[in-house]
């Protein structure tokens, strides 16, 4: 593949409802692309169009500059991995991996054996080649499904939430492997997920999909650090992004959150026109202790806390505004406890009332080197 894959104004209607609306997307050969969106955003619909399993209602899909809209899936060089582990139950792991090669019938027995063993080794499946899928753990079954997708050297590799059905420990291990496996492949890889952390870990480029629309496309860290809209910020935050309505006063010297809390708009917030804005603040930038003299104190009442490893999510309210803070350590404040949270204005995104990004905290380009494109 030389020119990659291009979606040009692709729309898909199902029973008169738009599942995908006017998608423009260009994916380079050898690129790793994350398709990030919540359940129901249209990720699977989009992957199915790329795979040729469904036809767009309008628009064109071009592979290497040649229009393939409507070309049968068997004539495209595509592999797909699903959320459910799809393997042939009556075939051994070896035969499962070999099956795509046998179907194409292009390889001699020696070359086929070499390819199967090489792929099995990359996915650490060598000890299980003689087993049936039912004799494997969930993680091993999904590895087998991935090996089947990888073995045939498809030019387009689509993964639809492949880790969603696994225990989180297995997910952790497989995630790290996936990145290694897909590095240095000439294929276009598209990986659909609902999880922001997964997108960050996988790197590459991220396309944010929401309600059938493509909201933003770019290097993963750029999208994370500069979400074009409030909605992108929400989709690319876990836990959810705090959204605070503030009023910047006539003189532009004060931003008011509530009758109790106001602060001077410093740093990248300086120079905002007076009026209403919505501040977006990721949960880990809301803390239990101030980090600098500029930090704004917000009195809150605790609703509930969630503990994960050595971090705690504190869900609380201030003047009817729901806030979530992600703090270090295992905490336990009872329901209704009164606390103070500290927010650093220098970490806030500023959105217009319509949800467009007005200002973002600066981030150093050094960090975007991580993107593997």
């Amino acid at each position: 593949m030389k020119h990659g894959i291009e979606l040009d104004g692709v729309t898909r209607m199902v029973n008169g409802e738009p599942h995908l609306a006017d998608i423009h997307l260009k994916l380079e050969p050898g690129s790793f692309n994350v398709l990030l969106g919540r359940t129901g955003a249209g990720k699977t619909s989009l992957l199915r169009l790329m795979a040729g399993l469904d036809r767009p209602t309008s628009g064109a899909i071009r592979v290497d500059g040649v229009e393939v809209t409507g070309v049968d899936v068997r004539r495209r060089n595509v592999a797909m991995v699903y959320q459910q582990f799809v393997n042939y139950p009556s075939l051994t792991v070896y035969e499962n991996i070999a099956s795509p090669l046998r179907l194409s019938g292009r390889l001699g027995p020696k070359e086929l054996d070499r390819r199967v063993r090489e792929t099995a080794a990359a996915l650490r499946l060598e000890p299980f080649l003689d087993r049936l899928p039912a004799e494997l753990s969930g993680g091993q079954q999904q590895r087998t499904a991935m090996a089947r997708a990888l073995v045939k050297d498809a030019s387009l590799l689509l993964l639809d939430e492949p880790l969603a059905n696994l225990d989180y420990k297995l997910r952790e291990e497989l995630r790290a492997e996936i990145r290694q496996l897909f590095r240095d492949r000439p294929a276009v890889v598209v990986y659909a997920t609902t999880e922001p952390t997964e997108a960050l870990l996988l790197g590459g480029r991220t396309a944010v999909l929401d309600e059938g629309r493509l909201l933003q496309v770019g290097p993963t860290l750029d999208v994370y650090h500069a979400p074009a809209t409030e909605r992108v910020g929400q989709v690319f935050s876990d836990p959810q992004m705090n959204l605070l309505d503030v009023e910047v006063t006539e003189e532009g010297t004060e931003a008011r959150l509530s009758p109790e809390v106001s602060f001077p708009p410093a740093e990248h917030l300086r120079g905002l026109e007076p009026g209403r804005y919505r501040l977006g603040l990721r949960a880990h930038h809301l803390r239990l202790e101030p980090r600098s003299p500029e930090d704004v104190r917000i009195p809150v009442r605790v609703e509930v806390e969630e503990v994960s490893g050595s971090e705690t999510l504190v869900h609380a309210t201030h003047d009817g505004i729901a806030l979530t803070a992600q703090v270090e350590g295992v905490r336990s404040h009872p329901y209704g406890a009164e606390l103070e949270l500290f927010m650093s204005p220098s970490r806030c995104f500023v959105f217009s009332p319509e949800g467009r990004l007005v200002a973002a905290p600066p981030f150093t380009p050094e960090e975007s080197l991580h993107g593997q494109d």
Partner: protein
Amino acid sequence: MARIELRGIAHAYQAAPRSEEDFALRPLELVWEDGGAYALLGPSGCGKTTLLNIISGLLQPTRGQVLIDGADVTAAPPQARNIAQVFQFPVIYDTMTVFENLAFPLRNRGVDRAEIQARVEEVAALLELTGDLRLRASGLSADLRQRISLGRGLVRKDVAAILLDEPLTVIDPHVKWLLRRKLKQVHEQLKVTLVYVTHDQVEALTLADRVVVMNGGRVVQVGTPQELVERPLDTFVGYFIGSPGMNLLPCIVEDGAVMVEGQRIPLDADVCARARTAGGELRLGIRPEFLRRVAEGSPQALRVEVTQVEHLGRHKLATTRLGEQSLKVRLPEEERLSAGESCWLELPPRWTMLYAGGRAIT
């Protein structure tokens, strides 16, 4: 409300277990205090569902006794135990309304109309179902259905305990925390004994006052969320809780100090002394978030080579090399570090554990 006691419980699925290996659940003693919130946490196949089914009466244990408030109920069927169970997939009647679903367990027991009305309204208010009582259950969202399922368990006044088996599996990730909050509030208000089975550490650590961690049919640690994070007594707990889990480094004890890859690591003298007589392989354990990056050449700091840095948004995760060992370090997002550099790490003694044969030396 009830106190549940498990005495010498063990279970084998074979009719005639020959060796210890045949037991899905190894002999264990556990007490669930009245009104406590417990989680049973472990990977699939660890025996947690087996244990839950023994408590509810769906399964007769091969050995041991189940006591509820002191009474032996080992042979009693589930319906005689006043235990409510909530499963992975909501168990509700699609043809009934939400009200009828909630009322069903009471109608079955011949409770009078007025009391049914009062109880259903009370439970519906608690679970924020009041506005949905007249709706038909079919076609409702998964989280609503699971709340109804929970409501059916709560509606009986005499319910001794609620057992929940991975109840959030089918719930959309973005709604999960709302349901967790609801569950926590319900427990805080009703103080009913709660046993929550999950493989998800967030659910376990969030909901439970005490977490029972299981692996390979054994209980490996019972502790508060804080204890499990800060002082894992078993290497499995160190690995399973936390993301990524604890760093575990093979080590030796020499001249009253721990040596990893020829480097000296200061640790409590008593622990070192006990390590000399403990059996099994010695490993040093420290969580990625407890390692401290310090200035170059700090005394007692380890020099490591950075092999990879991952940007995870709220923090960075560095993979480093110490001789032949790999060590993961979690750093604040503003920290500057890249692959190929060296950096110096300190292992605060407070967060550094020593394990012999997988068990902590304390």
